[in-house]
């Protein structure tokens, strides 16, 4: 599977990428939503985007809205991975088209469980 990891923290991107590699997946990375949309425009859709909420330039929730406005990205799943943990935030993300939601901090097992839940547990 091909994942796009979107987070403004290089440390968190590295952590997520390491977990993806251990699970046998491929990845690209972006530091904000705008950069992620540019990468998608140049490389085509990914199987899933894993996106933080609070980022400069374009936030995660703005990315979800922008991605869901593009019919060609309808098949790309989106999981928010964020420190935002209020019920209203989760509901907002799901209503705008996020497929799943993982709250930081999270464990390797929780991450793998979420991917399996989304049918994204098959290695590349």
């Amino acid at each position, binding site marked *: 599977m091909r994942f796009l990891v979107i987070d403004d923290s290089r440390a968190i991107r590295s*952590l997520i990428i390491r977990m993806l590699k251990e699970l046998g997946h491929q990845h690209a990375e972006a530091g904000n939503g705008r950069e992620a949309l540019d990468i998608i425009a140049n490389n085509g859709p990914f199987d899933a985007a894993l996106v933080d909420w609070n980022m400069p330039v374009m936030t995660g929730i703005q990315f979800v809205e922008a991605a869901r406005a593009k019919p060609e990205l309808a098949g790309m799943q989106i999981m928010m991975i964020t420190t935002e943990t209020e019920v209203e935030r989760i509901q907002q993300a799901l209503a705008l088209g996020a497929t799943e939601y993982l709250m930081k901090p*999270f464990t390797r097992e929780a991450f793998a*469980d979420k991917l399996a839940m989304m049918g994204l547990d098959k290695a590349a």
Partner: protein
Amino acid sequence: MADIKPDDYEWIRQFLYTQCANDLGQGKEYLISSRLGAVAREAGLADISALVTSLKARPLGGPLHQKVMEAMTTNETSFFRDGHPFAALEKQIIPRFLSSNSGRPLRIWCAASSTGQEPYTIAMVLRTNFPDVANRARILCTDVNATVLKRTTEGVYSQLEVNRGLPAQMLVRYFERAGANWRAKAELRSMMDPRVMNLAVPWIGIQPQDIVFLRNVLIYFDAKTKREIVTRIRNTLAPGGVLFIGGSESILGMDEGLSREQFGMSTVYRRAA
């Protein structure tokens, strides 16, 4: 356990953050002491300080690092653990129960229910797919450990726990915030019937059960006790009732009076109707 040195605390905090995004924050010395004290002892190390020294000297990702991560984060159970038993419950077991028992209360028993993720998962499956059945269902939750059973009564789970296996849609539908934690809503909690009980000792006063979950429990007992428990469970099953055991467990040779049935990836044992 001696006090945690500031440098050791900071190293553990950084380690957890970079390895599993677990931000311990400040002032959690008690947590490190209670969780990692046993890890240090098991590794033959004098204290937490010696444990940190040992961790620093080894490459990341080794067994000792893994043990530390698990001790600081792991739960013995999770919501929707293994997935397929709950798919079987939704697609086959409950529809079959309904076809032959319209209007009767449904009795489910989670034997060794630990901190309650399994019974709450069952409750969510029922509320979502069979709301009428959920209104007349009781989930008997038993465990030998009164402390963990209290958690089933309270229905309160940490963020790390609700992150494990619980779909976000289910989280926002069936849980509400309780400070830093999440609490199951009353519509789920009202279905729980928690009782302290030791499976290894003959029990009385358990009503006939339609469905029994006895997953990943039998492995902790010797062969004789295991056989006795399976026999007692069989006698507790209502006619036509089914038993779930863990995916890697077997009751071969002790399943007299039970017929084995396969539902997708799930094996269940049914008592004759």
